[in-house]
C-alpha cells in the first residue's frame, strides 16, 4: 500500500531519483545499466557511486515509485528495478515542475542562446 498516492506529495524529487526514474521509463533494468545510462548523459558530471545509488533505489522502492523484481539468472545476482504507475505519474509531475521552472528562467532571458 503506497504511503501516499498523490504525486505532488513526492515533489521536488532528488535529482538522482528523477534521473533514475527517467532511465527506468525505458523498461526494467539493474543498477549497473542505470549507472551506465546516467553516466552517458551530459547533465551528469560525477560518477554515480554504489551506496548513493542503492540507498536512492531503496528509498524509491519504499516510496513505491519503483518495484524490485525477483533476481533472474544473472551470475552477479543483479536484480531489475521497474517503475510503478505511481512512479510514472511522479516523474511526469517532476518533469512538468522543472519545465515550468525552466520556462520562468527562459522568460528572464537566461536561455536565449539555448
Amino acid at each position, binding site marked *: 500500500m503506497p*504511503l501516499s498516492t498523490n504525486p505532488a506529495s513526492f515533489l521536488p524529487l532528488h535529482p538522482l531519483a528523477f534521473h533514475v526514474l527517467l532511465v527506468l521509463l525505458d523498461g526494467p533494468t539493474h*543498477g549497473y545499466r542505470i549507472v551506465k545510462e546516467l553516466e552517458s548523459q551530459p547533465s551528469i558530471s560525477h560518477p554515480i557511486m*554504489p*551506496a548513493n545509488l542503492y*540507498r536512492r533505489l531503496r528509498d524509491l522502492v*519504499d*516510496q513505491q515509485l519503483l518495484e524490485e523484481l525477483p533476481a533472474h539468472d544473472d551470475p552477479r545476482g543483479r*536484480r531489475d528495478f521497474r517503475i510503478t504507475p505511481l512512479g510514472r505519474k511522479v516523474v511526469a509531475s517532476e518533469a512538468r515542475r522543472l519545465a515550468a521552472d525552466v520556462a520562468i528562467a527562459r522568460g528572464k532571458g537566461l536561455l536565449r542562446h539555448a
Partner: protein
Amino acid sequence: MREPSGRALYRILLHLLPGAFRRRFGREMEALFFEQVASRTSRSARLRHWGRGVADLVVQGAAERTTATRYQPRSVPPLPGDPMGTLLHTLRYAMRTLLTRPAFTLSVVLTLGLGIGLATTMALVVDGVLLRPLPYPDADRLIRISERTATSEAIETSLLTFADWRARADRFEAMAAVVSRNTIVTGRFEPARVPAMFVTGDFFALSGVRPALGRSYGAAENRPDAAPVVVVSHEFWRDNLGAPGSLAQVTITLSDLLGRSEAYAVVGVMPPGFDLLGTAKVYLPLERGVPWSVRNHTVRVLGRLKPGVALETGVAQLNTVQAAIKTDHPETDAIGIAAQPLSEEILGPVRRPLLLLLGSAGLLLLIACINVAGALLARGVARQPEMQLRAALGATRGRIFGQLFAESALLATASTILAIGIARGLFGLLGAVDPMLVPRLAGASIDWSKLILIAAVLANVGVGIFGSSSAWFTTRWAAAGLRVRGGGAQRGQHTIWRLLLGAEVALAFMLLVSAGLLGRSLYQVASVDTGFDPRGVTIIDVNLPSARFPTPADHARYFDAALRSLRNIPGVAAAGLNILLPLPDVGSIGSPLHLEQGEAKDVVADYRVADEGYFAALRIPLLRGRLFDDRDRAETAHSVIVGAALARRLWGDADPLGKRFSIPGMDGYGDAWLNVVGVVADARAWNVEAGKQLTYYVNFRQRPTFLTVTGAKILVRGEGGTLPPSALRRALVAVDPGVPLRIRPLEELIGNGVADKRLVLNILALFAGLALVLSAVGIWSVSSFVISRRIREMGIRLAIGATPRQVRRLLQREAMLPLLVGLIVGTGLAIVVTRWIRSLLFGVSELDGASFIAAAATLAVTTWIASYLPARRTAKIDPIQTLRAD
C-alpha cells in the same frame, strides 16, 4: 591494486552500512563498483575512483545509520547481527531516556563528577609530587648522609667529619656539605636578608645541574685564600640583579659564616627551580672560612654513589670510616652514620599524608559510586513495568542489560567531563598551598593526557562495576518479575539495599574516624603543656648587618640598647632574647659538656644564648637560684642557667647551684667554666617528649658569639595581649634605623609549625564532610524508595490498628540494621587503616575511643534523620487511600 585484495577491502568497507542494507544490496554494489573501476583506463583514474568509493561508503553509511528516512518509523530496532547498528540505536535510546529525567541524570552526574574530580586531583598530586623523578641526573644515586648519636637517629655532622668521609669513602663519586643560613646582601639594590647556602666544592658537580648562565665553582674556589665568588638563583638574578645578560663586573656584598663582609663576584646563575637540599638565593663557598674546628653538628651532607654501588655498600663503608674517626677522636659523640636516598628525605614526610588523602578521595569516590548504584537500582525497580513490557515484546535479557549499561556509560561520560573541569579548577587552587608544606607541588603542572586518562579510567571502572551490577540486578528482577509477581524479587532487592547502605556507612565511618583522629591530634598539639606561655608574645627577628656590627661585642651592645628601649614602651610586661625558640625543627646547636666533677656520658644539651627577660617573656618559672643580673658582666665569671631536666641528668638530686661545666670549642671561650646560678623549668617544643629537652642558657652579655651567627629573636610580652608591631618597630628604629626587622606574633609562628597537619586535616575534614552528606543523601533516597515500595503494607498495618508511631518506628528500625552492620564492618576496617596513619597522629592513640564513638554517633544520627523523614511521611498516610490505590 590487485583484484582479490581490492574486493576484500571493499567488502570490509561495506560494513560501514547497516547489516540489513548490506545484505540486500551489498553484492550488487560490489559488482557495480568493480565494473566502474575496470572501466577506468588509467591507474590514477582507478585510484581516484577508489577514493570516491570509500567516501561514498563513509558518507552514505553515516547517513543511513543516523538519519532515519522520512518514510520509516524513527529508530527501528536493527535486525540481529548488526552490532554497530545496535550500539548506535542503544545509545540514542539511552540518551533520550536520560533526558526525560533531568533531575535524576543531573544528580548522578554531579555525584559521580565530584567523586571522580576529587580522586583525579589527588591522583595527579601524588603523581606530580611522589612519582615524578627528582630533577637531577641519576637522582637515585644521591644519598643524604647523617650521623647517629646516642640520642638522635640522624643528626647533622661537622665539617671535619665530612672531610674525613670525603677523603676515605671511595664508594662515592662525590660528596658535598652544605650549611643553610640567612645572610644580608647588599649591592646596587635594596639591602635584603636572603636564604643562603654555603656549599663545598663538589656541590654543583654532584647535582649534575649546569648553571643557566655563567659557571659554577669547584674545589679551587673553596679554599681560604681563594677570591670570593658566588652563584645565585634564577630568582635572585631576575629580581635583585635585574636579569643582566652578562655577569662580567657583577658583584654583591655578602657576609659569610664568620660574619665577614666581602664583595663577591657573581659567576653563575642556576636554572629556575633548582632546589637541591632546599631553596637558596645565593650559593657561597663553605670552605673559604671553616667556622668551627670541632666535631659538632652543623653541616648537611649529600653524597653521590658511584654507578652500580648499592646504598648498603656505601653505608657499610661510611660506618667503617666513622669507626676509625671515633678511634682517632674519642671526643666525638657520633656512634655511626645514617643514610637514605635523597628522594626519601624529600618525600618521606609527605608520602603518608598524600597517600592518606588519595585513599580518602578513593573512599569518597566509592561512596559516590554506591549512591549512584543505589539510584540506578531504584530507577531500575521503578522501570520494571517498562522492562517487563520490553521482555514480553521479545527483547532478550542481554538487550535490556545493554540498554541499562548504555545509560550508565553515558552518565559516566558526562561525569568524566564534569570531573575534568573540577580537577582543573582544584589544581588551580593548589597554587595557594604553601610550597614549604608540600615539596614539588609548585612544580607539578597539570598533565592533560594523564588527567583525562585518570578521570576516564575512574569513570569506567566505577560504571563498569556499579552500572553493570545494577543493570544485572534490574534485568534479573525483570525476568523474575515476569514469573512471580512481587515476592521473591522484592526480598532480593531488600538485601541489596541493606548491603548498599551498610557499605556506605562503613566507608563514611573510616573517613570520619581518620578526620576525627587528626582533629584530636591538632587539639592535642595546641593543648600540650610546653612549659611556656606564647599568648600575647611578639617575636622580632633581628639579624645585624655584619658590615656595621663586626664584632660580637657590637651585637651585645645593640641588643642591650634594643631591650632597654622596648622595655620603656608602655604596656610591655617583659622583653628578652634568645637565639632559638623552643619550637619544632628550629635545629639544634650543642656540643658535649665537660663537667668539673664526674663524666657527662654523651650528654649533648641544647646551647642557648639568652637574657633574664627571656624567661619572664615566656613565663618560664625560676625553680632555684637566680636569673642573670648586673653581677653578670663580660669581665666576671660566666654564669649559666640550666633547665630542670638537664640539672637532673647531670647531677641527679644534688644541688646544681655552684656546679661548673665547660663547652670547649662551642663558642670560642675554650675551657672557661660556666657557673650554674639558677635552674628554670623546662620549655620544649610540642613534639619533644616531656623531660627530654636538655637546655642550658648562657648570658648574651658574656658570650655573644652566636648572635653573629644565628641572629637573635627578641620576645616582647604585652600586658594586655599582643602589642601593635608599629610601636615595637618605632622603639627599635630609635635604637638603629638600619637594622632589618621581622615582627610576628609567637602564636602565628607556632601555628605555622603545624600548618602541614592542619592542611591535611582540612582536606580530610572536607572529604569526611562530603562523605557524610553523600551518605545522608544515599540513605535518605534508598529509605524513601524502599518505604515507597511498602506503602501498601503500611496501609494494611495502619488499617488493622497499628499507630502511625509504630509504623514509623518499624520503618526506622529497618534502616538501623544496615547502620549497625556498617558500623561493625567500618570499625574493623578503621582499625586497620588508622594503624597506618599512626605516624601522623600526635598525643592520641590510633584507636582513640572518643574519635570512634563520635564518628559512630554522627553516622547514627545522620541515618536516623535520613530515615525519619520518609518514615514519618508514610506513617501519616490514609490507609483507605493506599488500599484503594492498588
